[in-house]
């Protein structure tokens, strides 16, 4: 067993993929000489050289598009975008090319591309570096959207994503980089088709992903002290959604709270809530609750940022509301 943090796990996964797969290369802003904005790729340039670890200028649209072109050309590019807000500069390529080419060409083209980026708030970076836009991307047919919430997933998801024949976007939560865990030595691929139950329980299903998983697990511990046994589901894949696991859990607990760092309106949490209503309506004992980010651009000041985001206390309150006195 080795103690690893999320950042080191991402690096191990990346290094493993680049060493094992000669068609893979990493490309993005400051991935090489700087060592990666979040130090994820530190040391890889020295080990693998500038062809495999390719620094780019500030041209998100061109280097993401080049990743798509290189994928069509037979390579397996891993493109890093510094943060989700910057990915909007490449939205044309992601939406109009990566997501559409297979279908628009009648199945002639595959785009086996991985795009990694950081997402989420919690580090006082204000309204242009802190948003959770993965729910937007999860709206788009043709893309696969992943959110590693644990050190193990941070290490293993990349390989599975890279072997997938379709474009995969991986959202790494900025607040998790210091998260630590004990892992076995080798990089093991992670199942990206299924959600994972991180805590089994019987009274309420807490459905979440990414950065809010740990807040949700903390909330579950608080609830346990009150005799409320919460089940915590980590979605891992935001598109496609593992609806089966969610519905099975809700049918068991008869209550659901969805915790999503995205904004509430038109969100992934709204989609999950709708699916629960469509497929488990008669199994519910209480209306579905949602804990989302307040509908403001994320503010800078610490107390304001904290108030904007889902927190263990707000998750506990929402769970209690679904349970009422009927545990």
């Amino acid at each position, binding site marked *: 067993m080795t103690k690893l943090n999320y950042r080191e796990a991402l690096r191990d996964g990346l290094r493993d993929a680049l060493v094992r797969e000669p068609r893979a290369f990493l490309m993005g802003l400051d991935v090489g000489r700087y060592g990666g904005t979040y130090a994820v790729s530190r040391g890889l340039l020295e080990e693998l050289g500038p062809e495999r670890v390719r620094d780019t200028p500030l041209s998100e*649209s061109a280097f993401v598009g080049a990743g798509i*072109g290189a994928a*069509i050309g037979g*390579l397996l590019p891993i493109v890093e975008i510094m943060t989700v807000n910057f990915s909007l500069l490449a939205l*044309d390529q992601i939406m109009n090319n990566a997501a559409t080419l*297979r279908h628009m*060409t*009648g199945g002639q083209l595959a785009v086996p591309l991985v795009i990694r980026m950081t997402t989420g708030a919690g580090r006082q970076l204000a309204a242009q570096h802190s948003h959770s836009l993965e729910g937007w991307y999860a709206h788009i047919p043709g893309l696969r959207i992943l959110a590693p919430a644990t050190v193990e997933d941070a290490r293993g998801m990349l390989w599975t994503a890279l072997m997938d024949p379709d474009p995969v976007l991986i959202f790494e939560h900025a607040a998790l980089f210091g998260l630590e865990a004990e892992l076995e030595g080798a990089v093991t691929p992670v199942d990206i088709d299924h959600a994972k139950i991180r805590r089994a329980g019987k009274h309420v299903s807490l459905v979440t992903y990414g950065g809010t998983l740990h807040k949700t697990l903390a909330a579950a511990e608080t609830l346990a002290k009150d005799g409320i046994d919460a089940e915590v589901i980590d979605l891992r894949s935001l598109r496609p959604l593992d609806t089966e696991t969610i519905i099975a859990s809700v049918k068991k607990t008869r209550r659901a709270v969805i915790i999503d760092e995205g904004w509430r309106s038109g969100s992934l949490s709204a989609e999950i809530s709708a699916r629960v209503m469509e497929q488990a309506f008669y199994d519910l004992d209480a209306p579905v609750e949602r804990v989302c980010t307040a509908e403001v651009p994320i503010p800078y000041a610490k107390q304001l940022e904290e108030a904007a985001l889902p927190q263990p206390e707000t998750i506990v309150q929402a769970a209690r509301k679904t349970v009422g006195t009927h545990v």
Partner: protein
Amino acid sequence: MKTEEHSPEMKIDLLRQMLRIRRFEEKAAELYSAAKIRGFLHLYIGQEAIAAGAMRALTAEDAVVSTYREHGHALARGVAAAAIMAEMYGKAEGCCHGRGGSMHLFDVSKRFYGGNAIVAGGLPLALGLALADKLAGRARVTACFFGDGAVAEGEFHETMNLAVLWKLPLLLLCENNLYAMGTAIARALSETDLCKKAESYRMPAERIDGMDALAVAVASADATAAVRAGEGPRFLELTTYRFRPHSMFDPDLYRDKAEIAEWKKRDPLPRHIGRLKEEGLLDAAKIDAIERAVADELAQAVAFADAGTLEPVESLTRDVYARTP
């Protein structure tokens, strides 16, 4: 350009390719009016010398990226006229099984990568195709066609910069037809000398008369040879004019009729025919024979599209992912 490529056969072939495109486009306009073809239809009439001339420089191993005005490029690249027509009919036998239509013709077997309807959106794709070749050590060229409208987009500038910075085997072919849809170039660009823009990225650039098929063929062959030799990307500005409106929906209110008439005097087809006649390579009988062969191919393409079948609605969600979820 090598001497043998100046051969009579080459010159006749330029004519044949231009005629294939001209007649195909005329037919497409007719079929659009007959409601056989729907959606947007952007005709290439007037610009044929560019596709015909430039495509000759490429081998089967090279790649081509084009725009939404790409029927001519697809035909000149060797995509079957029947598969193109069937695609425009939205038929299962179309090159993209009716998923793409007129603006999204793709044929991977010909390394013809669209058919891109976001202005300048194809440039980064072409950059990536060229990057893949360079990383794999293949001496292939990626040719990317785009219009003067793309020059105003950021993706053009990002691609120009990266292509030179990474010394990629990319041939950038800018078809300057003077209008970005309805916006005249002088109303869109502070600097209308497009070669200057390329030169500001240290990319060798040349302005060519895009109404002269032979001039396009010669310049493209030279530029492609340099790119293939590993000298890095090249930029060609091909001055041209579209004789038809932007699309079938365009009332063409923004162009002066006298301007259109003036450009029609430079029509690449009569000009090329005149040259070949002067050189004694062509007579009425020979032109007639070429026209008949072109008409036959076109008639077969239309018959193929007419006889084509509809994709079953059950196949709607196919090819969104490799595995249907």
